[in-house]
């Protein structure tokens, strides 16, 4: 497993370099120059333009400029955003990244869980009206025009039923007297989610070897302790930020629901296909013959093995989720990296656009690596090869 991880990490670093190279050369291939934007003053003479271009380093050959760009990139200097002048690009990214991460992680988990459960049940009851309805409904949700779907969700849930807010991520009236800023709350929310999932994972591993009755009891004790820990932390150690976190969560529900609904169908259909192939195996027949209840056969024997191709497909689904995130952030005015990228694109703010692309690429690479590790954990053949 360790060798596999090291190999994957090295491959990821190589891919990241390749990605940066491609980004740079595509950016360099644009007709015209960076200088055309800075030097749009018509009163400059030709010699002055030439001198300004030389001082910006644009008259050097392309490989020299590429090396300089890489050097600046690894020192954290991604340029200055034209539309947010004079803020540097990295500053804007650092401000908006936690919001996108929260939206992306939550919606991916919800959509995967929803798709997997729906596909599991669907494959178990083959044929009949349910299959047609689920397939057509799932495919329609998958291919629905996302901006329109987002607007419909806003209209139904936020406008007509008034269950959720109309958009944005904070309620300005509530936050007027807040002692902390939004990123403080976001970072703490993300850390809480990360640490509690790691702890949950360790707890599940540790209680695996017990007998069923003790296992269930011990696990539930663990869940309650974890929940109490989270509530205690937010109530006492975050200087009153709990109510603001709840406000952000309330704004998070509708975008997450929209994103999960449009991406769960892919996972659902793939799980169904994968389960259909798994159900033909001999061990399913054995499990039935042993007299195990239907749910146990379906969940602990068939679904466990059917999960492998679904996790592989997570890589494709991640790209789709990142795309959906950009569109959803626009419709719900959720000020994350997706909305920033789009605004920068509409204002032709090239440093910001490149910064957004690099952020998205890094996120995609990291998620890809995480999916590979998960797959290696689930499939012992890869671990021990």
């Amino acid at each position: 497993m360790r060798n596999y991880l090291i190999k994957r990490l090295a491959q990821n670093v190589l891919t990241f370099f390749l990605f940066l190279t491609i980004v740079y050369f595509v950016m360099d291939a644009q007709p015209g120059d960076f200088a055309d934007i800075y030097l749009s003053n018509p009163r400059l003479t030709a010699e002055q333009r030439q001198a300004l271009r030389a001082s910006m380093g644009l008259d050097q050959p392309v490989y020299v400029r590429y090396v300089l760009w890489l050097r600046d990139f690894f020192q954290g200097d991604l340029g200055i955003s034209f539309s947010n002048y004079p803020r540097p690009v990295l500053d804007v990214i650092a401000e908006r990244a936690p919001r996108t991460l929260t939206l992306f992680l939550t919606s991916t988990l919800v959509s995967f869980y929803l798709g997997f459960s729906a596909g599991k049940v669907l494959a178990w009851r083959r044929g009949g009206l349910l299959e047609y309805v689920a397939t057509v409904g799932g495919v329609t949700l998958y291919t629905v025009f996302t901006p329109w779907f987002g607007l419909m969700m806003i209209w139904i849930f936020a406008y007509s039923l008034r269950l959720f807010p109309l958009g944005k991520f904070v309620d300005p009236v509530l936050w007027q007297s807040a002692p902390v800023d939004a990123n403080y709350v976001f970072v703490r929310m993300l850390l809480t989610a990360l640490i509690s999932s790691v702890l949950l994972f360790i707890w599940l591993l540790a209680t695996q070897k017990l007998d069923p009755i003790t296992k269930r009891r011990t696990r539930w004790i663990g869940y309650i302790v974890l929940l109490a820990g989270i509530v205690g932390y937010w109530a006492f150690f975050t200087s009153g930020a709990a109510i603001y976190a709840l406000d952000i969560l309330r704004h998070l529900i509708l975008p997450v629901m929209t994103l999960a609904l449009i991406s769960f169908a892919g996972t659902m259909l793939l799980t169904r296909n994968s389960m259909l192939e798994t159900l033909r195996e001999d061990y399913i027949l054995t499990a039935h013959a042993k007299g195990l209840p239907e749910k146990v056969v379906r969940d602990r024997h068939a679904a466990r093995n059917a999960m492998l191709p679904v996790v592989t497909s997570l890589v494709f689904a991640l790209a789709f989720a990142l795309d959906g995130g950009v569109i959803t952030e626009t419709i719900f005015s959720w000020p994350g990296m997706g909305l920033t990228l789009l605004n920068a694109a509409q204002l032709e703010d090239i440093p910001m656009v490149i910064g957004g692309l690099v952020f998205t690429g890094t996120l995609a690479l990291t998620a890809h690596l995480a999916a590979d590790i998960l797959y290696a954990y689930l499939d012992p053949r890869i671990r021990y090869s």
Partner: protein
Amino acid sequence: MAEKMDLVPSQRSPAGEAAARSTILQTPLWKVRLQLAWRGFKSNAALFAENKIGLIGLAVIVMFALMAAAYPILINTVWDPNIYDPIIGYDFTQVEQPAPPSPAHLLGTDPLGRDVLSQLMYSAASEFALGVVAALVTVIVATTVGAVSAYFGGAIDTIFMRLADIIIMMPFVTVLIVLSVLFEIRMLHLALIIGILAGFGGDAIVIKSQALTIKVRAYIEAARIAGGSDAHIIFRHIVPNLLPISFLYMMFTVTSAIFSEAVLSFFGLLNIRMSWGLMIHTTSTAGYLLDLQKWWLIFPASIAITMLCAAFYLVGRALDEVVNPRLRKR
């Protein structure tokens, strides 16, 4: 082929040759091939029709094709071009633009006074063209890349697979947004870009694994022993066996192309004259995006995009059951 079967053709007289040929093959070769193809097509069509969902998708596609075909007829006969032109028409008989649906304008007019139904029908043709061009480019690129990397292996294989890894990893629309800032993108450029990105991406990996299973078959080795060059084996033996699965992925590329174009023109990042996404962009810039009283500005275009994308995806899934026998019900 009939000529090659004669061992010593120079020793026969012309009449003798004709007599020899007629005993080997009664019907001409092209007719035999046509009959075999027709029989194969009929059995595949029967398999396709078993799954009603594929038929629904096909029906929707035919409906949109009819819409696209009906537009030139209507604009030349019944409709007055000054009023009903989808780009420069203007209806001055309506008091307030955008006008609600009426007998003269079945789906109303948009904020600039142009008839919505005529815009819908005009764009259907360009969406089909976009989808077909993107799909064809994808099929050509993906099949070639898959076959070449499976056949040669080694360094070529590694390069193409690394490239495909990077491409699948990147979210499609984000890359297109970035490209639209750096370059000016029109419909044809968009189709080519989508085709190339999809062709070098995930499709290449699937087609390569399929080509690997073809490469180890006996007839490839036989062809090599008979003296076939690399190009001959790839293009005459491997590629024709890859075509069913390529055709399948073509459907998904069309879905992706239509969806990406709609999203990009909704954001206003493309340089095109009229499309469904552009209709919604016009609504958005005029400020009517959240005004659901004027439903005809948003619903027809969005529903058209959704239906056409879903139709191609459903047809693709039904074709999946034809191409991949393990998914069939039996």
